[in-house]
Structure formats: C-alpha cells, structure tokens
C-alpha cells in the first residue's frame, strides 16, 4: 500500500515545538544515514585490509563468522521483496541492535579504530524506531504481532558472542551488516514512498 498522505505528525507526546516530518522525508534521512554508515564501515575494512593484511585481494577470505548470522535476513532481492514491511523493519532493528555493543567496545578498546561507529548505529536505530512508529501510526504496519515497538524483544542470543570476534571479523561483519541494513531500508522506502530515488 502506497502512502498517499504521509504527512501525519509524529509528535504524539505533545511536545512543544515538535515539527511534523513527512514519511518521505524521514525515509530520506534514514537512508542517507545508513549510506554514511556503510561508507564508513567500508572504509574501515578497506584500510584494515590494506595495512594489516596487504596480501589479500578484494575478494576476501571466507570464513568470517558473524554474531549476527543467526538473525534471519533475506539474502536476495526476491526474498526481501516477499518479506512484509513489518518483517523488514524488524530485521533492520535487530541488526542495529546487535551492533551497538560490539562497536562501542571496539571504539573503546582498539586504538586503530578512532571512529565511533556505535553512535552512528545508535542514531540509525532510533531513526528506524521513529520510522516504525510513524508507519504504525499511519496504519502501514498491519501485523499486530510484530513487536517492533519494543526493542528489548529483539534481543536474541547469539551463537557466537561478539567478544570472541577479532577486529578483522568485526570490521568485516559490520560492513556486511551495514550493507544489509542499507539495502533493506531502500527496499522499504521504494515500496512505501517510491517517489524520489527509486
């Protein structure tokens, strides 16, 4: 269902000075933020490969086990398109939730990584949560069983605790997951508000 009237105010808390943001605008901001996050993660990974492992080519070695592997994510275009909006939104939120702590730890522990990506992830997560609320308000999210509003329910046990991952794995996995998030957000946007950029 395409959103035809997507300018409902999001300020449900009756906050003073709260500006109404359109859904299209919200999507654009989120996607921009996600792209930036992906760019940063890509640069980090590349730098790491260039300096730490110069002999490797770009194809990269297989065998990276990410702690987010247990999260069921669509691995193709058809799978992503078949997935409901609620499911996609949930996956996005799950991924973002999973990376907050590892990145925070990475920033604090490793001197090589100066960029605090955890704040980026946190911001993106909040944005997506706002987006989910807005969509729910607009009635775009019809599945009542999806617990998108409560992020705590998204926390699942990881098969591989992230503390066991080395830096290289973290960088690799984060890069991959940021790309996932970015893709999912784009699909969501082009499905709901397909105007600009689709």
């Amino acid at each position: 269902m395409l959103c035809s009237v997507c300018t409902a105010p999001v300020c449900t808390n009756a906050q003073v000075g709260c500006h109404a943001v359109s859904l299209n605008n919200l999507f654009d901001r989120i996607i921009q933020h996600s792209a930036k996050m992906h760019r940063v993660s890509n640069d980090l990974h590349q730098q790491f490969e260039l300096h730490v492992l110069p002999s490797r080519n770009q194809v990269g070695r297989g065998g990276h086990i990410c702690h987010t592997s247990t999260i069921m994510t669509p691995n193709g275009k058809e799978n992503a398109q078949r997935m409901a909006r609620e499911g996609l939104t949930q996956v996005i939120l799950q991924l973002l939730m999973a990376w907050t702590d590892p990145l925070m730890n990475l920033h604090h522990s490793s001197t090589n990584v100066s960029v605090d990506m955890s704040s980026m992830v946190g911001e993106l997560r909040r944005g997506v949560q706002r987006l989910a609320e807005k969509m729910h308000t607009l009635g775009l999210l019809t599945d009542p069983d999806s617990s998108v509003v409560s992020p705590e329910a998204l926390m699942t046990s990881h098969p591989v605790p992230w503390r066991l991952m080395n830096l290289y794995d973290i960088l690799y996995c984060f890069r991959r997951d940021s790309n996932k998030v970015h893709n999912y957000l784009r699909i969501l946007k082009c499905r709901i508000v397909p105007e600009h950029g689709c």
Partner: protein
Amino acid sequence: MPLNSPWNPLIIRLSSSKVSPLEPHFTDCVSREQETFRCWWSPGIFQNLSSPGDLRVFYLKKESLSSEWKECPEYIHSNRECFFDRNHTAIWITYCMQLRSQNTRYINEDDCFTVENIVRPDPPVSLNWTLLNVSPSGLSYDVVVIWTPPPSADVRVGWMRIEYEVQYREINTTNWEALEVQPYTKQTIYGLHVGKEYEVHIRCKMQGFSKYGDFSDSIFIQVTDIVTEEPLMFILVLVLGIVGVLILIMLIAITQQHRLMMILLPPVPAPKIKGIDSELLKKGKLDDLNFFLNGGGFGGLPPYAPEFYHDEPWVEFIEVEAEDRDGGGKDDSLTSDTQMLLGLTQTGCHHINLGCSNALGFPNNNLGQTSCYDPAVLEANSLMLMGSLLPGQPEEEEEEEKEAASFNDIKRCPTSAESDENKHNPVQPTWINTDFYAQVSNVMPSGGVVLSPGQHVRTQESSSTTEEETRKKENIIETEEKKQTKLLVVNPEGNGYTVENIRSPPPSTSVSPTEYQTVEPSPMSRSHGNQSANIVPDPPRCQIFTPVADYTVVQELDSHRSLILQPPPPPPPPQQSLPSCVPLKVPIGYITPDLLGSLSP
C-alpha cells in the same frame, strides 16, 4: 581465458602482488545486477586440462556450519564460465570456489567472496545530449548529457543504488576527462569548444562499493558555428523592422506634407511695410513701387493712401537708401541707415549736395548759395531709396544700371569750391550717423514727438571757422534741400506745400537726435527759399543739442494729397555760439493724432 565473454577479459583480478598462478585457477567472478554471478577459470599451464570437463567447478556457500561443496549449477564451457542463477545466488553470504580435476583439487582461499562485493553494474543506456547554453563569444558551450540506468540493475525497487562516472575527451586524443561520480542520470559538461567533436561514455558502480562496470557506448558531441546564426537573425529582424518603420514614417511625411509643414514650420508673418504691396516687392518691380509711392500718377499719395491714413495715426514713410555698392550695403557698420538714406557715406560720394552741374539752379536763399535740385538725382535717389526697401532682393539689371548711372551723377565728388569743406569736413552731417530709426520717448503737447537718444555721431567735426561753418551750413542746407527734395513726394503743381519733409537735416553738423526742428509749412512755392525756410533753421551751432531733423511733422494734407508739414521754427541768430539750444518741439515727420483729423484726401 574467456576471451569472448561479454565482460572485458582484460579486467583480470589477480592477487595484488602475485602473478597469475600456474595451476588452474579462477580468473574472475562478476555479478552484473547483484542477483546472479559468473565465474571464469583458466587451466593455467596445464593445457591438457583445457578441454571441457577436465576441470570442474565447485563452490561452497557458507550459509551454515554444515554447508558443503556443490558443483557449478550451470557450465558454459565455451567460455570456461560457471553461471549462478538467481536461485543459486545469495547476497551477503560467502562463496568459495574450487576447481577440481580428475584427482586434484585446486583450491585457492582467495577465491572466496560475497556477491555484493563482486558486483560490476552494466553501463547505462540511451545516452543523449542537449545544448545548455553558448558563451557570449560563441566559442564555447555547455551540454547536458542524459541517460537511463542499465536495464539489468533493478534501481526501481531500490535493490541497487548506482553511481555514474562520465568521461569525455576530444576526438583523437588519448586522455579522458573524468567527471565526479554522482548518482543522478544527468550530467552537465562545461566548456566544450565550438567546432570540436567530443566523445562521451559513462560507467557505473554500486554506491558504497568500488568496482566499476564497463563503459557504455560512446556518443559524440559536436557544435558547429550554427550558434552564431541566432544573433544574426535577430539583427536581421531588427534591421528590417527599423527599415519598415522608416518607410512608414516617410510615407506619412509625404502624404501629410502640407500639414506637417504647417505644424513644424508655421508661416512666419512677413514684415509689412505700410503702403507697400509685398508682392510688388517680391517681384522687384521698383518702377511700380516707386510709382505708387510717388503718387501713382495721381499726384501726391498713392491711391490707397486714405486707407493707409485711416489705419495709422501717423504716416511713416520708411525710406532707406539703396545699398551701398561699395561698402556692402546695409551690413556696412560704418554706414548707418541715415547715411544711406541721405546718400552720404564715408567711402562713396553718394551725397547729393555735390556739384550739380546739370541741375537746375535755384535762387539761393539768404545764404547765398546756389543749391541744386537735380531731378535726375532726385529720381535716382528715389530709385535708390526704393531699391533699398528691398533688402536682399535681386534687383533687375536695368534698374541697377539706372541707379548706377544716377550714382555716377551722385558720385560726383564735391566741386573745388566745396572741396575745402569736404576735405576738412567730410560733408556728412554728423547727425547722419545716427540711426535712422529711433525710439519715440515722448510726445510733445504741440504734437511733436521726442525721440530717445540714438547714436550720437560726431565725428569729423572740426571747429572750423565761422566761414566754414557758414559754408557748412550752406552745404548742409543744400544737403538738406536735396534731402528734402529727395525724400519728398514732390507735388508737381506746387500748390500749397508739397514738401513732405520727412526729414530735414539739421543745419549744423552735430545734431542731437532728441530734438527736432519744427517745419512750418508755408504757402510758398517750391523754391529754394521756401525750402530753405523749411530747412531746419535752428541753431546750427548747437553742437549737441541741435535737433535731428529726421522727421518732419506733417500738419495736414492739402487738396492734392500732399502732406503739409509744419515749417521749422525760425532759425536762431547765427551768432549763437553754443548752447542752449531751443529744443524743438515738434518732431518732424510725424502726424500727431490731432492733426490726423485735419487731414483729408
């Protein structure tokens, strides 16, 4: 080596520092749209494994810990290519490739990848360009290149976000100019040169990734000098418009010429000389004019004189001397109008009081001097006067000759008897230098008009001896006579007073223009004595205050339409040496309003 693959086989990704391995290996794996991918392999130096089937491709898709190696889902042996379709392609999942021969496994750990990392988008399609603008000099221009995303890349769903890099170069050069990568499907190229041909191509890459696809087919941009035609056309249209407007204005001017002339150049009122028909003047018929002015055969005044008199309170005869032949006529500043009128000039000997050899002699007055009345001279002078009424009018030759003849007479310079005076005192009454026209400043109760001071002339006035003065006086008197006669409309019958002494010269050489003599008409025949009596009798000694007898007051008209002038006041005693001159009361030459009524034709 898949030479005929659609992808440029030259793009072989090798290990960053290794040479191509000798054993069988994968040369490249590429995905075009992030939905499928292909891998090519090479047997290496093991050419015995080059035939199809010798080497088999296995892949490992690391979805879970229990993944296993699977064989290539689709072989394209002609290309040594393994194609993975959508069902076998998963994104964000690591694939590891393996080549296996009959009994050997050639595994390279570097051959593991994720599909999103091997995506090289197809080039864009439908390239086109439009002219954006041209520089004012017409030498350079900007174009906008537009295209559509590659059809294989599903941008509409948001599955792929593509960025484009536009490159252009001048034809037959080697260096491409690369513009900044940007995600929109149009790009402006600035600063192309007119007349040169440019080649443009575009390639794509995924946003956030670094692998470019192949270049698109080139398009060619060229702009010739056609752009300069636009201002030319504009100028042409402008010129035609102006020409059309000009033609329209000319047509209007031609058709409405008369009206326009009336509006733009209103007719200037022609100067009117009372009693003179302007047409006559234009035609230059001096004879007729003279005839009219001299009485037109009826004697006395011209036939239209009564009307004339009724209209004007005074009779004013504008009499001007003929043009000075020598001095350039009226423009000669040295000769005033008075001089010209009276025929006295500095240069020429136009004055009249010269020896009148062929003149009739008249008995002298008490001055004992014969004065001449030369009808020929008179007539000539009249002609001169008449001629001078037509300033600038070309006079007929015969009249000119006539006048010249008369001039010759007139030019006769003073006789020896008078030469002395002439030498000493160029016979020109100095008052002659005063302007003929003077402003009336006051009207006397007796009817005289007082003129405001005009030019004082006083020149070669030498305080000669009494004798000289007498002579002068006599000369002057003669001059005056001549002048009077000249100026007057002569009444042949002599009945009554004929003299219309329009002006009677003052007896002395110095004259005050403010004072005039009163000429008293007396029923005397036209005699010298009479005339002399009419001549200004006033103290000639009065250097400064002697009246300017330019005008004579006309008292009345006689039966013959002659103006009867007031006789001048009786001359003062000759011993008067100077000064207190009796100011004349009645200006000469004017008819006072009260006199007008007494005038009758």
